[in-house]
């Protein structure tokens, strides 16, 4: 019963494992693992991070799950166009979110409440969109039955939604927990007294004590916990199956879910535009650093191109593994916790002064290390699960992987792939922490904006970030429009 391509799929899995574990491996190779940890400090750090992240994740998921069934019934196409705005808080630099939220409160509730509030604003949109995507792919087909049989709210959630979406919920939970663990600025700023968390502990180890061995040990510990948790939770059986023609169930123009979600989007967008307009009134357009801006923009387009190329290679590899039905679900839980670790590992591997293309490739690899698996799990994998039976047919009829990819898989996941590629590209334009840690010398737009913000020029930073967003959204909206021919 040998399949000659099976060894290739194992080889690919091996390569992916090597790739995603490379940052920590590089650090451990260069620095001895140092477990000289102050356990009481570490415990407090973990406790703070854990409480903040779990509360945020739970709140995001509970509220998202309340909204998602209603959102899935909306038929207006303009809703689809507005939805990506919900990703803004998770895509823009955290300083913007901080300023927007702070400007709303006379007495900001510092402490755990304040931290959870800011994290919630950052991640709620993302969690809703991911769960909406999963819901539409996996559960939408039951919405008629639910109405016909008047299934109660409790039964809907406990007997249908939660079992069908359990794995996606767990994924979103882990993404948010990891994001919160990796945040330095929010707990420090909004935490009031409790200004110690795991990322702060890593920061102290690295920047203050120069103790990379400890930082690596902490990152490894975080990765292992997430990996084990995800691996264990993933072993729970998957319940959902079946194809959904999602348009059939879209019957409403407006409902309560939409109102609440628009309120969330509106709060952030209005806050963002308010800051933007305030900034526009304060800047001098004649002294606007246009040439540097254009250079950074063009460099970021190059970075975006390379990032999407690397993503394409990883995606094809993951699709091949999926097609070959090789057990590889553990891959999805290689969620890397620390931008600093990834950045430094890239610095150690690549030359510091290099051609711009090598520099951009370095960052493209870093962006893929951080985001690709998460985005694959969130946007692409639900679609693949949906067409699994079609892939069975393809295998039965001896379609090669190439034929299946071109004729069966790609037409049905095209939309999700474009969304994923777009999100990755947006990160290319806003990322700066990774670029700095990796020692890249090329001026990308994220670095340019960060430099402005770091030197009294916050208003220019706001305006440039808006211009960048408008260009990028416009570009990818156009690409999506051209590539999606029919619905």
């Amino acid at each position, binding site marked *: *019963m040998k399949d000659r391509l099976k060894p290739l799929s194992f080889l690919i899995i091996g390569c992916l494992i090597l790739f995603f574990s490379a940052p920590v491996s590089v650090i451990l190779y260069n620095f001895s693992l140092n477990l000289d940890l102050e356990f009481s400090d570490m415990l407090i750090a973990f406790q703070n991070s854990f409480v903040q992240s779990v509360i945020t994740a739970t709140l995001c998921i509970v509220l998202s799950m309340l909204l998602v069934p209603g959102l899935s019934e909306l038929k207006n196409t303009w809703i689809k166009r507005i939805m990506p705005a919900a990703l803004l808080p998770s895509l823009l630099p955290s300083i913007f979110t901080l300023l927007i939220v702070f400007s709303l409160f006379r007495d900001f509730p510092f402490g755990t409440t304040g931290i959870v509030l800011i994290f919630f604003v950052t991640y709620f949109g993302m969690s809703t969109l991911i769960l909406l995507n999963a819901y539409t792919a996996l559960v939408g087909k039951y919405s008629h039955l639910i109405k016909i049989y008047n299934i109660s709210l409790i039964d809907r959630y406990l007997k249908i939604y939660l079992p069908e979406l359990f794995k996606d919920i767990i994924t979103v939970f882990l993404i948010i927990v990891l994001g919160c663990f990796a945040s330095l600025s929010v707990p420090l700023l909004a935490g009031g007294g409790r200004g110690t968390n795991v990322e702060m502990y890593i920061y102290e180890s690295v920047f203050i004590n120069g103790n990379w061995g400890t930082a690596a040990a902490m990152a490894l510990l975080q990765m292992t916990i997430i990996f084990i948790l995800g691996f264990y939770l993933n072993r729970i059986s998957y319940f959902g199956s079946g194809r959904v023609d999602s348009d059939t169930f879209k019957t409403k123009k407006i409902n309560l879910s939409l109102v609440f979600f628009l309120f969330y989007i509106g709060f952030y967008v209005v806050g963002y535009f308010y800051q933007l307009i305030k900034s526009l009134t304060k800047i001098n357009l004649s002294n606007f650093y246009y040439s540097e801006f254009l250079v950074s923009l063009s460099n970021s387009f190059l970075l975006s191109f390379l990032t999407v190329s690397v993503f394409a290679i990883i995606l094809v590899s993951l699709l091949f593994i999926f097609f070959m039905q090789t057990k590889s679900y553990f891959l999805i839980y290689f969620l890397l916790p620390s931008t600093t670790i990834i950045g430094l590992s890239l610095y150690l591997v690549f030359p510091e002064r290099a051609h711009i293309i090598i520099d951009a490739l370095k960052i493209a690899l870093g962006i893929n290390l951080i985001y690709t698996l998460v985005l694959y799990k969130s946007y692409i994998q639900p679609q693949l699960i949906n067409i699994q039976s079609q892939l069975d047919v393809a295998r039965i009829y001896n*379609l090669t992987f190439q034929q299946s990819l071109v004729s069966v898989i790609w*037409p049905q996941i095209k939309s999700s792939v474009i969304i994923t590629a777009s999100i990755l590209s947006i990160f290319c334009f806003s990322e700066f922490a990774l670029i700095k840690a990796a020692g890249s010398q090329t001026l990308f737009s994220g670095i340019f904006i960060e430099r402005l913000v770091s030197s009294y020029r916050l208003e220019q930073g706001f305006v440039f970030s808006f211009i960048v967003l408008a260009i990028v959204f416009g570009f990818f909206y156009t690409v999506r429009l051209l590539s999606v021919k029919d619905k």
Partner: protein
Amino acid sequence: MSKISRLHYAIGSLVIDIPELELSDKGVTAITGHSGSGKTTFFKILLGLHQPKAWSWNFDGVEMAHLHVSERQLGVVFQSYELFPHLTAEENIRLIMRSRNNVSSDALKQLEHFKAKLKLQKCWLTKGKYLSGGEQQRVALLRAILSSPRMILLDEPFSALDQALKYEAYEIVQEVLTEIQVPALMITHNLAEARLFTKHIIEFKNGQIQ
């Protein structure tokens, strides 16, 4: 005859246990039984979607149990037909013909012949997701026929059709299966339906043959 031996496979609480079974290499063999009797599991084992250990299926001297799913050269009509929804009826069929390397002029003639016989001209350029149940069933059948199979497996091929369509479908499918002279294995829970097609009926109960 094709012979199955030492088939033992457990899935959930169901255990398929078939020490020996002979399937006809001509005409239709029907597998009947109540829901949960193991028919569909057996069906998937023959297709290669489940992989029991140490069993044997000898088909015309070929040891099928050792072959990968794509090497078994089978045709299939699933209960839910599983057409590729974004492809037209024609594209669904031509894709499989290409993958099975069945593109000779004889194959193309056969395509036109059965397309007319199965009355698919009107929906030939319609995408899979827009085809009616009956049309999907006939497209799935034509796809199976033109995949140059050594055997066609049909899993409840008529269960999704309404009564009026069913009788029409029985007639067409019988005609076509007789014409192509490829052995077929049909799963159905409807004994009367099975009797319409064949005398070779195998009954499943609790994973075993009665």
